[in-house]
């Protein structure tokens, strides 16, 4: 009997096996989303936002994420954006570092000494990011491009997206430039078009099951460059913020759903 089963199974064409594998992966992803631990990161992040810290023993509650001091709901859906006080386009992570410095009196070096955590010890930024992005759930993506520096950032981000370099000659578009492609079983959204950018951007940052950790957008970009065989990008540098800005603007109109859950 079992031999018959094996025989039958081996007769199933491989395309069917591949489709089954795809269905199983989809089922797995759905199950992951239903039981996501991202909520725990959000709770911890809210507590950290309100906790007095640093030489000034102040909380981040007066941090201006673009909508005014302390206004968090919907702020992430309107980032990156230009900030007058720093005269820069900033993404969420770089803005948080500015607030840590301005409100809490912390140095940039101290605030960024551990930007990516691990499963044992997450980074403070990962907790804060989880809570802040969760406060934009249901908000439509609307990163602005009206200030001249925002337009320049968007244009640079687009150039960064298509810039081929490194030992393997890749750009972001090498993997995210054509529809219906995948690496191994991983499907690849076209990030230079609204549908693909919305799919990806509205579900990042995300809880990554394979590393038991919440990962930020700066981490996502860092790890893409690692796999592209580029050298390491500087945390919250002009190019990574510009790239994030380009993706956010391209994702315009998509309802934010994060933090997401990924394999």
């Amino acid at each position, binding site marked *: 009997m079992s031999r018959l089963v094996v025989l039958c199974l081996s007769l199933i064409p491989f395309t069917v096996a591949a489709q089954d594998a795809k269905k199983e992966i989809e089922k797995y992803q759905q199950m992951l989303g239903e039981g996501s631990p991202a909520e725990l990161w959000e709770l911890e992040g809210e507590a950290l936002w309100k906790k007095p810290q640093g030489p000034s023993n102040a909380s981040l509650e007066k941090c201006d994420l673009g909508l005014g001091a302390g206004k968090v709901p919907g702020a992430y859906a309107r980032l990156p954006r230009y900030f007058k006080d720093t005269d820069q386009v900033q993404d969420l992570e770089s803005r948080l570092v500015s607030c840590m410095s301005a409100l809490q009196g912390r140095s940039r070096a101290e605030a960024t000494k551990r930007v990516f955590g691990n499963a044992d010890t997450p980074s403070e930024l990962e907790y804060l990011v989880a809570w802040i992005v969760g406060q934009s759930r249901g908000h439509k993506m609307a990163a602005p491009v009206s200030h001249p520096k925002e*337009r320049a950032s968007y244009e640079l981000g687009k150039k960064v997206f298509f810039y081929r370099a490194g030992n*393997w*000659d*890749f750009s972001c578009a090498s993997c995210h430039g054509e529809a219906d492609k*995948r690496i191994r*079983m991983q499907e690849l959204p076209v990030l230079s078009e609204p549908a693909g950018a919305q799919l990806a951007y509205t579900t990042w940052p995300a809880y990554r099951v394979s590393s038991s950790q919440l990962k930020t957008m700066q981490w996502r970009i860092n790890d893409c460059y690692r796999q592209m065989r*580029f050298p*390491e990008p500087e945390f919250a540098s002009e190019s990574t913020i510009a790239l994030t800005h380009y993706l956010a603007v391209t994702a315009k109109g998509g309802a934010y759903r994060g933090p997401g859950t990924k394999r």
Partner: protein
Amino acid sequence: MKILVMAGMLAAPLALAEPTAREVQDIHLRDFHTKGMVKKEAVAQDAVQRICTMSNDRPSAEVAKQLEADQMRSIAFPAGSLLGDWKRGENIAQSGRGMTFTDAAGTPNGGSCYNCHQMAAKEISYGTLGPSLQGFGKKRGADAETQKYAYGKIYNAKAYNACSQMPRLGWSGTLTEQQIKDLVAYLLDPASPVNQ
């Protein structure tokens, strides 16, 4: 008044001047740093990368021809048979290790072939960025000319298609001469699962 404001908005330039290729490169050189085995200078573009980026991967036929001829000269074709061991080739095709800023120096690199290509029918976890190579040798045979084409294509894909998305695996130092020969055997050997 409202109309004036709107007219003003419409008159405003919608896009600033785009940064030049040189400016974009300088920004990359400033914003990336050496880590592990990957040197920061790797973000500077060579002729292939620069021309492909600027032309959206569609250079004129003349420029493409010139680039391909230049890249062809970079290929060191070994003398004799280019058929290595397909079993070793299979491991190289499966492995995606190496060349990242977190890889330890000294670990053998893989070719990451399955990331983008379908090959053996039994492997269902394959990427689709590149064309399917299933039955590659069955269709073409394994004569000296086919061996040379497969070796050259793996060594430097840009010698055959200037703006190919495939990495220059020999040229970049990712794979050794022996590893490429093993991959050629994996593609061409009639006993290889690619041709079953």
